[in-house]
């Protein structure tokens, strides 16, 4: 019996302490298939032996929810997310300021003057097409956002769900400006989002880039980099820049308040802005904030954008939460667009 008790206690102790294999740095929302975090993490581990965690709390909103919940006992050191969510995080008090070394080299509209968030890259939200599947169905490639509402493409397109994904929430926010709406009246944008679903398309709670490559979603709305990297891997996919214009999702990072390993986190966050990391981002077809880091051979790889619609990050951050509510009411629950927007004060006057 004494042997049994000793054995149990030893086993429990070993289970709790456990063998430590690689040094890990807990970071939220580093999806391996988005902006090639798999490649970035591999490069960082090769350089320093520290491995930031991949695929933990994927989704900008999910990461913010996790940080909020863990505010009393923080587990994550940092997070990657779209900058409108980063602004929300600053307002929620879950991030702390960090003066990253290359802060001044980041464009002014992609950084917070108080150092709570900063951009690391941007990606235009475009239409992705699986050329094989569309050819088999005898359909021409769509050329505009309006094309997606055409019945001949019924049910073929997938976007990510704006209540889950930062990219999709920027898409939800920016469609209004792209289609001619004003900052006080989101009816134009929301009518499009509702018509998108009414034409049989879906809003998915998963990263859609693999679905495009597989053909499950022959048309997607996604960051251009995710599509181009699949194309570089041999998938029959391509980017279509819609004629009405595109907006870019601003992607960045934040330093968690009360981070368990602040020095390691600061090292990692500074590394993401280094030439090495920014080049990896460029090679993954995302536009790095440090434009000088784009290698010469990649300068033609990015799609030509005829009309770039800017995203007002503070306005987006202030309203994206309410817009998600209106989106759920008007689009996902089949309610009335005007009514849903009036409730949040964005139906114009």
């Amino acid at each position: 019996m004494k042997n049994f008790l000793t054995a149990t206690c030893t086993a429990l102790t070993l289970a709790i302490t456990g063998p430590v294999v690689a040094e890990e740095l807990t970071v939220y929302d580093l999806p391996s298939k988005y902006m090639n975090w798999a490649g970035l993490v591999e490069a960082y581990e090769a350089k320093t032996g520290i491995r930031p965690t991949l695929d933990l709390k994927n989704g900008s909103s999910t990461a913010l929810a996790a940080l909020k919940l863990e505010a009393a006992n923080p587990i994550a050191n940092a997070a990657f997310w779209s900058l409108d969510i980063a602004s929300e995080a600053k307002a929620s008090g879950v991030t702390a300021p960090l003066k990253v070394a290359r802060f001044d080299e980041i464009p002014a509209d992609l950084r917070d003057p108080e150092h709570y968030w900063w951009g690391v890259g941007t990606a235009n939200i475009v239409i992705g097409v699986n050329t094989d599947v569309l050819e088999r169905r005898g359909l021409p490639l769509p050329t505009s956002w309006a094309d997606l509402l055409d019945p001949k493409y019924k049910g073929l397109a997938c976007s990510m769900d704006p209540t889950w994904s930062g990219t999709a929430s920027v898409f939800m926010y920016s469609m209004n400006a792209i289609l001619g709406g004003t900052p006080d009246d989101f009816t134009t944008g929301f009518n499009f989002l509702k018509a998108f679903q009414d034409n049989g398309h879906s809003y998915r709670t998963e990263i859609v880039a693999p679905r495009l490559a597989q053909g499950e979603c022959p048309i997607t709305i996604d960051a251009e980099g995710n599509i181009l990297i699949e194309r570089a891997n041999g998938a029959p996919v391509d980017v279509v820049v819609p004629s009405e214009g595109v907006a870019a999702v601003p992607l960045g990072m934040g330093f968690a308040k009360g981070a368990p390993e602040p020095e390691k986190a600061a090292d990692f966050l500074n590394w993401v802005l280094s030439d090495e990391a920014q080049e990896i981002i460029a090679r993954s077809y995302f536009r790095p904030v440090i434009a000088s880091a784009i290698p010469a051979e990649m300068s033609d790889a990015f799609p030509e954008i005829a009309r770039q619609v800017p995203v007002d990050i503070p306005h987006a951050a202030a309203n994206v939460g309410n817009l998600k509510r209106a989106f759920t009411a008007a689009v996902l629950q089949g309610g009335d667009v005007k009514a849903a927007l009036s409730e949040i004060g964005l139906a114009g006057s």
Partner: protein
Amino acid sequence: MRAFMIVTTIALLGIFALGLAYPLATVILVSLTGESGAPTLDVYRRVFASGYFMQALAETVMFCLVTSFIATAWALPLAWRIGRNGAGAHFLQTLSQINFAFAGIIYGMLMIVLMGNAGVLALLEAWLLGTEATRGLAFTAFGLGVAYLSFQIPRSALILAEAIAKMDPGLPAAARTLGGRGPAVTFLVVVPILRPALIEAAVFSFLLAMASFGPALLIARSVTIFPAVIYREFTGFLNFGNAAAMAILLLIVALALAGVLRLLVGRATPFHTQTDAT
């Protein structure tokens, strides 16, 4: 031996306290805390006042009731084969048990692979018939139903199989000697004997379905599944109060309905053979 019992009991109580009692208490606390931090019933009032949440709950309950009944009825032949040790019983039992290894999201993925836009069924149909009626079937109520049935049927079957194994094989045999044919024997003899087990299997399937969230996240479009709505409140809107209140509501409704089902369908008296007949 005694020390072993003590250690095990403490370990189990510890797991129960840390893994269930404490988190549950925290959720209840969050649901009773207002925005200012003071205790209040406002969150519950808000949830009950929301037509959307209440409708989602009603739809989910209806959907789960329907699928659990269908699953239990459909599981009977499978359970019979396993319980009576018929041909392939062991293989079928293993197949049913493998079911436990899959999480809900896996079922969603399997449905997409089978009946999605580029699913096996759609590709087969396009190749054989050139039509595309089955395209995207996974995202309909039918597809969601299939996803739910695929984890409910094996579990109901295993519960029923155990009861069938314990059933006196002499009773159906006696019924047959008295001239009863297949369906008559099944409905007049076997089902009444198995009634407690059938109710247990149905209730268990119902509770499982009510908690299920993985398939809903990936494929639910026309049916609003309550656990998925809770998830959206939680991660999409960061409305922890709402999510906590809805979670407690789900818990109460599921357990209450389970209890009502057991009572309404009645505690069946076991079928006694007439031993005092002369």
